[in-house]
């Protein structure tokens, strides 16, 4: 009964979302106040029933209802409670239900926040969001129903994929989805603006906090995925340029470009059509990601089931979304017009460069991701594009961008002056060079690229800090800074930490594959690593061989690690559970390989300096986004439209 109720709730959600979109779009077109009044209650109802549907599926997992096929395939009576809940979104059908719930939540937010938004415009946005959600609900009902019964019921479930039995799995998908789906809000705003035929600075002011929130979620989601791959896939890499990773990273790059472009649109009334285009592309890329992941075109841990009907459905949906949005864009965007001009040396120019670089980076990654698929579809052979391609094409646009960031942050709107910039930036510059030299040499002999990378990281951090100092010199205290500025500076410091971590880890990591017997000692980066013994152990649903590895430095005990090789009982697949000693300046990573015979085992031992800065940087970035989003400015009453306000404000974002 419960699963049927769940499906029924989903059908109701679909109906409410449909009414919402029809009432919103048609009501705005024919100016029917009574239709417009329906939109917000429908949005609330949509959320309530989506949550009910999701809750009922979760309930089926909690009570181990193996008469539901999806539960039988992804759970097991031995599976711990915590993972039974996470298993709801561990495979295709349930994760789509999560997607729908998330979109309903965003819709609810847009419906009830932004009190000063004109009712007609809000109705249009909610109409578009409703349509998108309808599309996804149709998809679930037609091809991926999680509530299908299994007759006769299974006695025992097939268990959750062991790779996914991990705390990070519990939070990675919901957070990533919140970001992915949040870009739908920007998309809806863009389509709404195209229907109305105008982009105003209020439009940008309303959209900015939503985009910042979605971007922050996306940042944390991608970082969690990377962190999870680092310790759970077992081999210590943190980014593989796997198509699925790219699918989440490209929307992130677009969202990053969008938040910068929105700043210009809000403050200066410029880049209007560009901002709208970015908003469309951001969500289109997240739909493309969904297509790549869900259609079976790609094979990875994320590509759950390959069913051509699913791929076709998403492809058609993707085509419709992009086609309609770009068609509207071609029709309406030329009317947006452009605001005042700006000099070559101005904040606008730097933000334009930032946008250009980010979009180029996303484009090059897109080419590398899609090219093998095209070649395959044309039956011209099977190829893959290796990580060195991505590393290079990512660095070409982003390294100059990071170097210019420091200057851009200190440039004023409309026109900046070299003398002024030099005055403000000479201190960060004179500190960054020696600090970068010091860090570069701390772990060994660096190359030019190492120095440039480390310098870029330190330079960004210091120029952000220098902005705070400038403000203090002008007699304002740290806490009197607008939150949007504080958030911007924080996010840039996060970026600096990330660049620093990435560079140092990439260049100075040491990795060794070794054959060791109990009692053997190896030396790695000044640490003495000893395989003390190997023993058998077991967990709730797996058996394992566990190594006991002690790590000493100059004879002093640092830590003991317990890397495991697990075999999960139901799916009988082996899994490597690495032992990691985490630290601010370095990680020590030990993973158990195979039994080589003669009592020796293969081990992979790694020394990874500053690897934590990668995820720390991402977290700081996301925190900056949230800080910026909380600026009271975004909750002010609607302002009179001024195309180029606050010309004299100088360094505000």
């Amino acid at each position: 009964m419960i699963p049927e109720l769940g499906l029924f709730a989903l059908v109701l959600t679909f109906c409410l979302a449909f009414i919402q979109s029809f009432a919103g779009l048609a009501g705005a077109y024919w100016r029917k106040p009574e239709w417009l009044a329906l939109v917000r209650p429908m949005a609330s109802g949509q959320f309530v029933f989506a949550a009910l549907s999701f809750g009922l599926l979760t309930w089926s997992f909690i009570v181990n209802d193996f008469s539901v096929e999806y539960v039988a395939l992804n759970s097991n009576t031995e599976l711990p409670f915590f993972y039974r809940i996470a298993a709801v979104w561990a495979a295709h059908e349930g994760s789509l239900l999560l997607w729908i719930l998330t979109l309903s939540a965003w819709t609810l937010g847009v419906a009830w926040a932004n009190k000063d938004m004109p009712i007609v415009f809000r109705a249009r946005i909610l109409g578009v969001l409703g349509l998108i959600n309808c599309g996804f609900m149709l998809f679930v009902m037609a091809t991926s129903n999680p509530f299908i019964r299994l007759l006769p019921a299974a006695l025992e479930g097939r268990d959750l994929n062991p790779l996914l039995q991990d705390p990070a799995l519990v939070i990675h998908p919901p957070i990533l989805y919140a970001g992915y789906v949040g870009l739908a809000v920007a998309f809806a705003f863009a389509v709404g603006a195209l229907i109305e035929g105008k982009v105003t600075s209020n439009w940008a002011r309303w959209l900015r906090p939503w985009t910042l929130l979605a971007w922050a979620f996306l940042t944390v989601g991608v970082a969690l995925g990377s962190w999870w791959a680092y310790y759970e896939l077992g081999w210590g890499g943190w980014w593989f340029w796997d198509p699925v990773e790219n699918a989440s990273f490209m929307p992130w790059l677009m969202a990053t470009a969008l938040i910068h472009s929105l700043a210009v649109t809000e403050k200066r009334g410029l880049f209007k059509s560009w901002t709208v285009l970015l908003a469309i592309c951001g969500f289109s890329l997240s739909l493309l990601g969904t297509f790549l992941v869900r259609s079976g075109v790609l094979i990875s841990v994320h590509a759950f089931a390959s069913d051509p009907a699913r791929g076709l459905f998403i492809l058609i949906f993707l085509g419709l979304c992009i086609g309609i949005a770009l068609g509207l864009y071609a029709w309406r965007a030329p009317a947006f017009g452009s605001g005042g001009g700006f000099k070559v040396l101005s904040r606008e120019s730097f933000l334009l460069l930032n946008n250009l670089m980010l979009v180029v980076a996303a484009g090059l990654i897109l080419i590398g991701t899609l090219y093998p698929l095209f070649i395959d579809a044309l039956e011209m052979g099977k190829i893959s594009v290796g990580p060195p391609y991505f590393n290079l094409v990512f660095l070409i646009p982003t390294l100059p961008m990071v170097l210019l960031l420091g200057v851009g942050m200190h440039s004023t709107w409309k026109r900046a002056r070299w003398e002024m910039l030099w005055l403000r930036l000479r201190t960060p510059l004179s500190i960054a060079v020696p600090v970068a030299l010091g860090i570069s040499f701390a772990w060994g002999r660096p190359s030019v690229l190492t120095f440039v990378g480390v310098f870029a990281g330190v330079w960004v951090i210091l120029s952000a800090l220098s902005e705070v100092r400038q403000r203090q010199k002008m007699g304002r205290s740290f806490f009197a800074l607008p939150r949007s500025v504080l958030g911007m500076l924080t996010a840039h410091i996060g970026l600096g930490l990330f660049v620093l971590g990435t560079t140092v880890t990439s260049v100075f990591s040491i990795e060794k594959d070794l054959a060791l017997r109990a009692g053997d000692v190896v030396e790695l980066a000044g640490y003495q690593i000893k395989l003390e013994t190997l023993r058998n152990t077991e967990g709730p649903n797996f058996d394992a061989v566990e190594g006991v590895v002690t790590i000493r430095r100059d004879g002093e005990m640092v830590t003991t690690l317990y890397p495991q090789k697990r075999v999960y009982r139901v799916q009988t697949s082996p899994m490597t559970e690495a032992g990691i000693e985490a630290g601010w300046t370095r990680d020590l990573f030990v993973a158990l390989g195979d039994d080589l015979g003669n009592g020796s085992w293969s081990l992979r031992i790694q020394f990874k300096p500053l690897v934590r800065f990668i995820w720390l940087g991402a977290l700081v970035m996301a925190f900056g986004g949230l800080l910026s989003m909380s600026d009271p400015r975004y909750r002010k009453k609607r302002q009179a439209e001024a195309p180029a306000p606050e010309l004299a404000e100088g360094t505000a974002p």
Partner: protein
Amino acid sequence: MKKRYQRGIRVALVLAGVGIAVALMLRAFDENILYFYTPRQVVAGEAPDGRRFRLGGLVTLGSIEREPGSLKVSFLVTDNQKTLTVEYEGVLPDLFRDGQGVIAHGAMNDKGVFVADEVLAKHDENYMPPEVAEALKEVHGENES
């Protein structure tokens, strides 16, 4: 006049940047494309000499040989028609075992042995790399006809 001059600079900068990026990209692209071959294609001489490529197939049952106490391992990869010897030194992935579909990255040496620097076997016991599945299907069809 001045405005046009400034715009000229901007356009030139953008064009130069794009040009350099495209040139570097094409080079990186060309260097990093790995083609996929099956043992049959390699034996037929279709695989390039001295260039890295991806070899895919099934690990022949009972063919995994380890040099005791070291990380050196050799095994046979087959598409059920032709078979190649693969040598590898390092830690093998979790799901590497007899009868599994694998993909190895590496190049042929002059003894006709494929020297791999990376071996992939993916995360699911039912999983078969799509290239391998297709290659096996082709062979199957030819054997019947």
